């Protein structure tokens, strides 16, 4: 702003400059001094105007004082310096031409008013600012408190709404606070929970470590622990929980409270118990089942040294018959009755009875003295079965076979023990049943091998593990090969070549003998045809095939034989069927009929192993046989020199008898030339034995026959 030099405006500015220079150092404004001076100029003008106004008004002074505060001059020095300045320069610069005394009086009054205005404004500003900062502090506190409140409310909601039971107690065990979930677990009433002491909450089923852990925690030696624990509800029922207890420490780390979190597992536990019971018990009899029995047996067998065990494996004799004839309902009732009786037999500690399935039961006894106890246990079981069982008005006699295994623990696995018991039980059963047998390791081993071979038999036939060796039958008169006996062998993958004595009884037992026999017959007959084709000129070679008793009874024998012969295109006289004497003992006409039909067709029938059975000579006439095969026991006596005269007489007699009945005689087991010569002299027709050849592949026979023919 331009002002006339030394005019009123210029003088006012000079006053303001002096004023601002005086006050600026005691302000804390961020304005520059020239900027600050601009803020003071209106205030100076107010004072100047009031000084010269027609009517004096001290209010301008008050406004100027307030203006100072507004310009951020809040320091007391700002007022005193301002008053000094006004006092010294206002009249000087702005009072030109007026009455000096009057002007000085006005200036003084303006200064008083300025002081009052400054004080009032400063007071108001101070109060306002104090008010503002207090409000701000309050609001800030409010925000924090709200956050805290919200957080606390959330915590409370978590505490109260949690599905898990929460409780807080002091370190003396006094329960301070629990949530709703915990109350509900305890039956919903507060009296059983609040005001109680944690230490009152013992339960008969507390694990030993539960209270040791508790003491460690309240002593501050442990931060938390987790246990499964039961509590008594006020009504006496059990509350089962998964319990986690944590130690709460104060800000300085000193133990302060204990916090318990508990999950109600009562239902789950009951369900588990029930499922466990169902999984380990037999639904029909309520006895422990195979699973539980194995668990117990395994536990027993893993017990410490010095312990023994005894096991009775019971299988009812003839249960299948009862089931088949009276129905399953009756069978089930019988089993229930038997189960009850067995249970009554094994009541001592360490004894248990289980049903393994079907009509198989086991009784187990454990302890140091089972050698005696297991015998008594088996006897008790046998006795328990003696009384007949009454079902649907019938009195059923129950018998059983028991396999007993006894021994020290720690030597055999549960499966091995049970297998031994099973084998022994079968031994008892095949010995006629209604008895108990003690396990015997050798019998077990045999049975295990037998079992293995038996189960492998069907697959062996499919896989072609069988083969046939031929042992020549030689005419004693001229030494020519007249035929051969077919002998079946089993090339077992593990056991090597097995002779018929090892597996034919098993095949008989399982019925596999029928397909196996058919296979042997077919192979042998084919072989016979091959020989005939090759050297029919060497005379009609005949093949001897063994028939087992089972095959003899098989209704398809005749048809199978005929089919094989026809299919192969070989005449019946090329085949000789060997039947043991014992198989025909007491044979009736029905049994002999198939043999007769075969004989009528031209198939030769040889009576094998003659002389080992009853040798019912009278019977010979009745049988459709054409050959007698003397058992090797007769020829054994001729191996020595001189030969046993009694044996010579017997053989001579038999040969005479046979010839008189028009039967040819074959001898087995010829091992020396002397023997052969002796038998020739005695009139035997054909012979077989190592002297001529051991059983071998068909090519061997071929060679022999050729040699023979050439000879």
């Amino acid at each position, binding site marked *: 702003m331009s002002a006339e030099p030394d005019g009123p405006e210029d003088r006012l500015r000079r006053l303001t400059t002096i004023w601002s220079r005086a006050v600026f150092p005691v302000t804390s404004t961020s*304005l520059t001094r020239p900027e600050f001076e601009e803020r003071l100029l209106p205030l100076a003008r107010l004072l100047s105007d009031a000084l010269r106004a027609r009517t004096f008004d001290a209010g301008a002074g008050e406004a100027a004082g307030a203006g100072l505060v507004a310009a*951020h001059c809040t320091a007391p020095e700002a007022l005193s310096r301002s008053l000094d300045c006004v006092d010294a320069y206002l009249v000087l610069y702005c009072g030109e031409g007026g009455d000096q005394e009057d002007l000085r009086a006005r200036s003084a009054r303006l200064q008083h008013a300025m002081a009052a205005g400054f004080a009032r404004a400063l007071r108001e500003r101070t109060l306002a600012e104090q008010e503002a*900062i207090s409000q701000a502090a309050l609001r800030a506190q409010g925000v924090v408190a709200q956050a805290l409140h919200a957080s606390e409310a959330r915590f409370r909601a978590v505490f109260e709404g949690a599905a898990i039971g929460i409780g807080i107690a002091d370190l003396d065990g006094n329960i301070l606070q629990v949530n709703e979930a915990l109350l509900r677990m305890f039956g919903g009433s507060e009296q059983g929970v609040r005001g109680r002491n944690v230490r009152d909450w013992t339960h008969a089923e507390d694990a030993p470590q539960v209270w040791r852990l508790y003491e460690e925690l309240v002593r501050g030696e442990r931060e938390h622990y987790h246990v499964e624990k039961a509590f008594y509800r006020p009504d006496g029922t059990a509350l089962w929980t998964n319990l986690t207890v944590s130690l709460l420490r104060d800000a300085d780390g000193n133990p302060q409270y204990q916090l318990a979190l508990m999950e109600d597992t009562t239902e789950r536990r009951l369900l588990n118990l029930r499922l466990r019971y169902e999984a380990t018990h037999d639904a029909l009899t309520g006895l422990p089942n195979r699973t539980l029995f194995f668990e117990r047996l395994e536990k027993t067998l893993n017990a410490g040294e010095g312990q023994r065990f005894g096991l009775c494996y019971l299988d009812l004799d003839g249960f299948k018959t009862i089931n088949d004839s009276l129905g399953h309902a009756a069978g089930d009732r019988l089993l229930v009755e038997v189960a009850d009786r067995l249970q009554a037999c094994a009541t001592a500690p360490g004894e248990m009875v289980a049903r393994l399935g079907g009509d198989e039961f086991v009784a187990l006894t454990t302890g140091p003295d089972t050698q005696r106890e297991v015998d008594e246990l088996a006897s008790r079981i046998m006795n328990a079965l003696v009384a007949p069982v009454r079902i649907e008005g019938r009195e059923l006699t129950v018998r059983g076979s028991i396999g007993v295994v006894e021994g020290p623990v720690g030597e055999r696995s549960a499966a091995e023990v049970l297998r031994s018991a099973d084998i022994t039980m079968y031994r008892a059963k095949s010995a006629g049943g209604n008895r108990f047998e003690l396990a015997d390791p050798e019998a077990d081993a045999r049975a295990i091998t037998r079992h293995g071979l038996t189960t492998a038999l069907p697959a062996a036939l499919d896989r072609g593990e069988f083969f046939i060796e031929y042992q020549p039958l030689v005419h004693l008169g001229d030494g020519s090969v007249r035929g051969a006996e077919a002998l079946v062998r089993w090339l077992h993958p593990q056991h090597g070549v097995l002779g018929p004595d090892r597996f034919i009884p098993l095949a008989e037992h399982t019925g596999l003998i029928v397909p196996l026999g058919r296979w042997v017959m077919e192979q042998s007959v084919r072989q016979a045809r091959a020989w005939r084709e090759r050297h029919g000129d060497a005379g009609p070679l005949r093949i001897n095939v063994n028939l087992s008793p089972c095959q003899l009874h098989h209704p398809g024998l005749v048809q199978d034989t005929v089919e094989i012969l026809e299919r192969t295109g070989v005449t019946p006289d090329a085949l000789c069927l060997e039947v043991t004497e014992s198989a025909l003992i007491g044979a009736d006409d029905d049994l002999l009929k198939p043999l007769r039909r075969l004989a009528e067709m031209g198939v030769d029938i040889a009576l094998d192993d003659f002389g080992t059975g009853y040798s019912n000579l009278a019977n010979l006439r009745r049988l459709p046989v054409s050959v007698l095969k003397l058992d090797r026991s007769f020829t054994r006596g001729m191996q020595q020199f001189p030969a046993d005269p009694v044996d010579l007489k017997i053989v001579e007699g038999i040969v005479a008898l046979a010839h008189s009945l028009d039967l040819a005689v074959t001898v087995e087991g010829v091992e020396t030339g002397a023997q052969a010569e002796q038998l020739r002299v005695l009139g035997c027709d054909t012979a077989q034995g190592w002297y001529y050849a051991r059983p071998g592949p068909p090519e061997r026979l071929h060679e022999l026959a050729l040699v023979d023919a050439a000879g």
Partner: protein
Amino acid sequence: MERPAWAPRSIDISVPSVARIYDYYLGGSHNFEVDREAARKAMEFMPGLPKIMQANRAFMRRAVRFALDEGITQFVDIGSGIPTFGNVHEVAQSADSGARVLYVDHDPVAVAHSQAVLAGNDDTDVLAADLRKPREILESPRLRRLIDLNRPVALLLVAILHFVEDADDPYGAVAELRDALAPGSLLVLTHASYEGIPLPPERSEGAVDVYKDIRNPLIMRSREEITRFFEGYEMVEPGVVPPPLWRPQTAPEDEDPYAFSGFAGVGRTA
């Protein structure tokens, strides 16, 4: 439990606050007796403390105007404290009515007061956050609402970095903020230092100890250390200097000797 990151466990107004002490130095009454007591104690050692603050404010005022002259209309003032006479938004909005200012402070009372003062001014806002957690500042919705980080921003760190200890990595925080700024942004910074204080060092240390006692230690840094905050910036003339010497509008020799304490500077991002 969730608590706003900035909110202390409680507001304890019996503990002095550096923001309110600052207000007291500047002649304000936004303070309580504990604040005034601490301030008076510090002033026993350094009677000229208010002059240092005043010089800081005057520098800030000049720097804001400089930024406006550079065409910058967005301001982020971290450590803004208690709004007092001559705030950034007053300076900025008097020159450019569209200027936007975000105040940031971690003192909840300062924030609450700022909210009251700024009520109704849509181009300003206040954010409760801590310089030590720059990500929270940069990602806050309040900043995103007001400040366009794709355009130049004037970042004010006036009289705050000397309250951040090295352990809290003040250089890292400043660098993180810098990396978020668009090219042409300005860093406006002042920092306390023993250099320039017209007193023997033991007197200054007495004042520093007062801040230590109120658990807001004052970290005095050398000019070289202060200059390092401008790493990645191109210094605006005259560089890092005592506050009255930064682009003065009046003769520096008129200034109070205390005004030359500490350093001030402005840097520009490339």
